[in-house]
């Protein structure tokens, strides 16, 4: 019998089998089982029941509100991300590291605290609560509050993707364009944007997924008015708490589909355009 010698930096077969099984079992039980359950429950009563549950007016209203919130929050945070990355990557100024830390701050704040701060500003007992009520402006328990909370929790996504990428790419190309007489806008459009487009898409993709799926922060400012201020995740909670499990899992399956699509596009970007993403996402 020929004995196969291991390379010095290779694990023995038993260890490979053992660690491989542990990893796969852990992922299967912890991550895949919940996902499978969502789809199983959603299709439990057949496709026609699923379709009826989706066409329910309150469900459609929640889909619309989620799209509105993401439709405002994602473009705003994208513009912010580009502006922040532009000034941080292309210029030197004091306090830059501190600014980057502040931009990351919303990620380390609990979503509930994110909702809470807007209640403290705009709530009935909040800073501007009285004057807003006098002018009959509704921010809390209305769409603007939901948009604000969504902006907060998705704040850093685009910026933190673009900043390391643009810092890596340096300033030479832009400076060359400027020397050759390009205006700032031309430089950005023709030089910078082609360099960062996949990284930008990556950030927007993650930002959008979080914006549509945010629960905690939006929950605090929403007021849970059925068909009016319920986003899709909040509608899941409402249906679940009312023991409408089929309905809850139907909306949940829609959100899970969205999450899976996000993961597919994300993996595709990491695989196909790895060199044009921030270093942290290169596999």
């Amino acid at each position, binding site marked *: 019998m020929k004995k196969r010698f291991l390379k010095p930096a290779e694990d023995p077969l038993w260890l490979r089998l053992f660690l491989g099984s542990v990893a796969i079992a852990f992922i299967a039980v912890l991550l895949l089982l919940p996902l499978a359950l969502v789809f199983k429950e959603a299709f439990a009563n057949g496709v026609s029941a699923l379709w009826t549950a989706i066409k329910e007016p309150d469900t459609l209203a929640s889909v619309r509100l989620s799209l509105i919130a993401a439709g405002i929050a994602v473009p705003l945070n994208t513009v912010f991300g580009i502006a922040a990355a532009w000034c941080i990557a292309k210029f030197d100024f004091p306090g830059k590291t501190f600014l980057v830390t502040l931009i990351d701050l919303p990620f380390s704040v609990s979503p509930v605290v994110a909702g809470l701060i807007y209640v*403290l500003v705009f709530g009935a007992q909040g800073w501007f609560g009285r004057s807003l009520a006098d002018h009959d402006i509704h921010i809390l328990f209305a769409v603007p509050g939901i948009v604000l909370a969504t902006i907060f929790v998705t704040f850093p996504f685009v910026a933190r993707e673009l900043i390391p990428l643009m810092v890596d790419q340096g300033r030479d190309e832009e400076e060359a364009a400027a020397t050759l007489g390009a205006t700032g806008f031309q430089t950005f459009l023709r030089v910078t944007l082609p360099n960062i487009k996949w990284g930008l898409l990556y950030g927007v993709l993650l930002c959008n997924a979080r914006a549509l799926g945010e629960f905690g922060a939006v929950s605090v400012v929403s007021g849970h008015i059925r068909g009016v201020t319920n986003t899709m995740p909040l509608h899941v909670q409402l249906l679940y708490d009312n023991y409408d499990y089929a309905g809850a899992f139907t909306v949940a399956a829609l959100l899970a589909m969205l999450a899976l699509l996000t993961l597919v596009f994300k993996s595709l970007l990491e695989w196909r355009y790895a060199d044009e993403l921030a270093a942290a996402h290169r596999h």
Partner: protein
Amino acid sequence: MSATGLKLFPLRSRHMLPGFRLSLGFTLFYLTSLVLIPLLALVIRPAELGFGGFWTAISTPRVLASLRLSFGMALAAAVIDSFFGVIIAWVLVRYRFPGKGLLDAVIDLPFALPTAVAGIALSTLYAPNGWIGSLLIEHGIRIAYTPYGVLVAMIFISLPFTVRTVQPVMAELGLEVEEAAATLGATRLQTIARVILPMLGPAVLTGMAMAFARAAGEYGSIIFIAGNIPAVSEIAPLLIITKLEQYDYAGAAAIGVVMLAASFVMLLALNGLQSWAAKRR
């Protein structure tokens, strides 16, 4: 206005590229109005209670129990995730097997899946009549509607942080050190325990800190499975919402400030860890 701008940033005149003031101005305006001022409202609000009032607000048994639960379980979840995260990262970096790309992509599921969806799925799965819950209940183990439900949800939500922090560092480890250890007579397990794992130290700690921070603040995936029994399985973020619903803004803000302070400490610790890791490279 422009005069002060010049004084604050004397380097400006040397910039070749345009748009510095516009981009920095917009960045600061957006950051200040949407993040910093609202956060300031949170920090200022408990001040109206005074120090004594603040202390009374956060030292009630119910609040203390919720903070202990949130931070205690978050620590446990971070440790468990770090253990399995290192194994998963090792398998993904070092082994080759079919379906590896899929396994790698699935790790980010907790990032992408809305927390409410995770919450109702975990709750149904671990309930006494659920797929996993019914197996465990035969052995007298209850997960859903107990503090362990909180732990399970936290383990779920924080796993990607540990894997994704360790994975790139592991991929960069050169094989030379391991080969040297093997040549000098170390067994494979000795090499892993005494050569490889110590080199991963900073990355593992960073991942653990991020997992802890995320788990401590988590709300959506927990409230469905926790049962939310006051002083038993009620997490701090939920108590904030309860206090808001009772119009106890100052009380809610007091808990919020404690959680925010914890986030700051974690952020500082992470910065420290990262500069430590950079020095060790």
